[in-house]
């Protein structure tokens, strides 16, 4: 069956994927959230408030930028960048946290928890909480705290409490576990602002909807700029929120090719990558049924990516649906190729991309080379690379002192 944009169903199912595999304790909060979100979605006041925030606080619409020097150097298709990196807080994450912060207030809750990998979602949540005067606790794996020091400092400056997570692999996956455990005890007073299109229903749908502003603007800007839709759209996929936001408005435009790029890490052996759609199989993790990297007993495996935001063994259920229906092609990009793309974009365009987004840039460069010059490839540049300065220096063997 071809993919449709009319998903999920009332049970949060994207085809076979999604659902709600969480303890009974959370069911009530998820029902409450679903109901409140449905009301808000149809409330012009809510929509106007969110759009005003996007415009005056985030700086939307984000530009669709023609990477001319890069395109010429590659000698093929024209590469355009959807500049989510110029958003306030430096990534697409703020699109979602502002929406969920407004919902938090509508539900009469005053405390927010969040997980973060690269720290971008943590910063975006801390920012939204500061903006609305909400209490904010961010769970972050110890390994990620090491890799993303500037973001940890920013969160604290914004008044959030950053709680280090020392269990398991000490990365994004464990941060989500810890946030869910907090929510188990605090569910009556606290909203969990999940940062990606993962987790139990309604999160995958709701986060996708908030992020879909990326794809809607891209369609509008494409029609204005070059009078048609792009030929190919590329985005990186960890949990998959920037990709879902970019792809979703394109799903019913069948002529546009969609490519999701996972973290290929060091290689295709278990433990060396974080590419669940490429190498995993359907299973249950963090409340939904989707592709996951797990062993034959169902234990989640450790994964690797140099980019903290992609270092996750699962993926949003709608991506699994798009994979199974063939609507989106998923591939993966090795650490070293993403690093090369990081350098290339810096030198040709004066833009330091986030390491996550560098995976998408690498794939765009790869395919643009072989396409005619009148073809258009749009890359979702989901975040900026400032936060990665220390990690890039470390990986390149440069001592910043």
């Amino acid at each position: 069956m071809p993919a449709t944009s009319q998903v999920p169903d009332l049970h949060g199912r994207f085809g076979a994927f999604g659902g709600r595999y969480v303890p009974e304790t959370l069911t009530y909060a998820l029902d409450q959230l679903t109901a409140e979100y449905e009301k808000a979605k149809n409330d012009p006041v809510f929509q106007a408030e969110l759009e005003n925030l996007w415009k005056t606080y985030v700086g939307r619409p984000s530009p669709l930028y023609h990477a001319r020097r890069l395109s010429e150097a590659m000698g093929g298709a024209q590469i355009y960048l959807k500049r989510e990196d110029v958003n306030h807080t430096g990534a697409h994450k703020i699109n979602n946290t502002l929406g969920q912060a407004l919902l938090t207030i509508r539900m009469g809750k005053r405390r927010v928890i969040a997980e973060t990998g690269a720290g971008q979602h943590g910063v975006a949540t801390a920012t939204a909480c500061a903006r609305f005067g909400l209490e904010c606790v961010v769970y972050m794996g110890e390994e990620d705290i090491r890799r993303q020091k500037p973001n940890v400092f920013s969160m604290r400056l914004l008044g959030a409490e950053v709680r280090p997570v020392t269990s398991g692999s000490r990365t994004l996956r464990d941060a989500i576990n810890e946030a869910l455990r907090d929510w188990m005890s605090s569910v009556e007073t606290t909203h969990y602002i999940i940062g990606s299109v993962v987790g139990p229903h309604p999160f995958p749908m709701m986060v996708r909807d908030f992020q879909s502003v990326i794809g809607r603007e891209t369609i509008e800007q494409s029609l204005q700029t070059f009078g048609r839709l792009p030929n190919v759209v590329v985005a990186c996929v960890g949990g998959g929120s920037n990709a879902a936001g970019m792809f979703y408005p394109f799903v019913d435009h069948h002529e546009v090719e969609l490519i999701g790029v996972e973290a290929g890490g060091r290689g295709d052996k278990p433990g060396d990558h974080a590419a669940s759609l490429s190498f995993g199989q359907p299973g249950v993790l963090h409340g939904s049924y989707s592709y996951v990297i797990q062993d034959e007993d169902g234990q989640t495996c450790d994964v690797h990516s140099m980019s903290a935001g992609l270092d996750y063994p699962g993926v949003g259920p709608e991506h699994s649906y798009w994979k199974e229906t063939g609507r989106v092609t998923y591939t993966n990009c090795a650490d070293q190729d993403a690093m090369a793309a990081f350098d290339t974009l810096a030198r040709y365009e004066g833009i330091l991309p986030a390491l996550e987004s560098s995976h998408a840039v690498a794939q765009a460069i790869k395919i643009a080379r072989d396409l005619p010059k009148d073809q258009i490839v749009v890359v979702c540049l989901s975040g900026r690379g400032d936060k990665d300065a220390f990690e890039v220096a470390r990986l390149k063997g440069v001592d910043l002192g």
Partner: protein
Amino acid sequence: MPFITAGDPDLEFTADLLRLFSERGCHLCELGIPYSDPIADGPVIQASYTRALDKKVRLANIFETLGGVTPQLTMPVVTMVSYAIINRRGAERYVDEAQAAGAAGAIVPDLPWDESAGLAKICRQRDFNLIQLVTPTTPRERAIRIAEASTGFLYYVSVTGITGERSTLPPELVDNIAWLREQSSLPICVGFGVSQKEHVKLLAPVADGLIVGSAIVRRVAQASEGNPPRPRHEVLADIGQFVDDMLSALRSV
């Protein structure tokens, strides 16, 4: 009703504990299948799962050990298991293997009632109990439907939160259980936070069973943590004493 983690610190000790619980007169044992990402569990049980998984315990080994020990037990054993594990094994195969090993049922803490129809059907066909959970955040109408779907017994989660010892339990707990009792003919067992003799005295008049997890698992940890770890016979004696104390508190009500 004690809870322990299979394979913490190894399956031989798990078998020893199961025999001990049975001999001391426990009415049922919940055997936790270690899982890498348990979201309903507090630090004590998480650490226990991690210890077991670090030793590479496999589901097949757990069922093998369980199958060897259940014929010697006078109490039933139910597995506490994540749906991630059941789904990966295949629900039918999981139930068949658990049943062949002598397990009487399963508690699946991350499979709420709405998602449980498929597994419930498989369990019903095999006369294998699927124990459902009701929590303080469950609306009453929903609690009635969950009770109707549960088999074996109904698990009442005493607190809004994760597993772990509590000094006090919510004041409305007794009333809530009493209400639930009027809605269902199933036995009602209470877990999460239950760890002290005072809890036993409070809950025994209204509940049919009390599940004690972290208070026992914390003692099991002594067999592998610390330098050097405590000798196993001492840990077994300590747990035996704790179980005796809890059981005598129960009998004195």
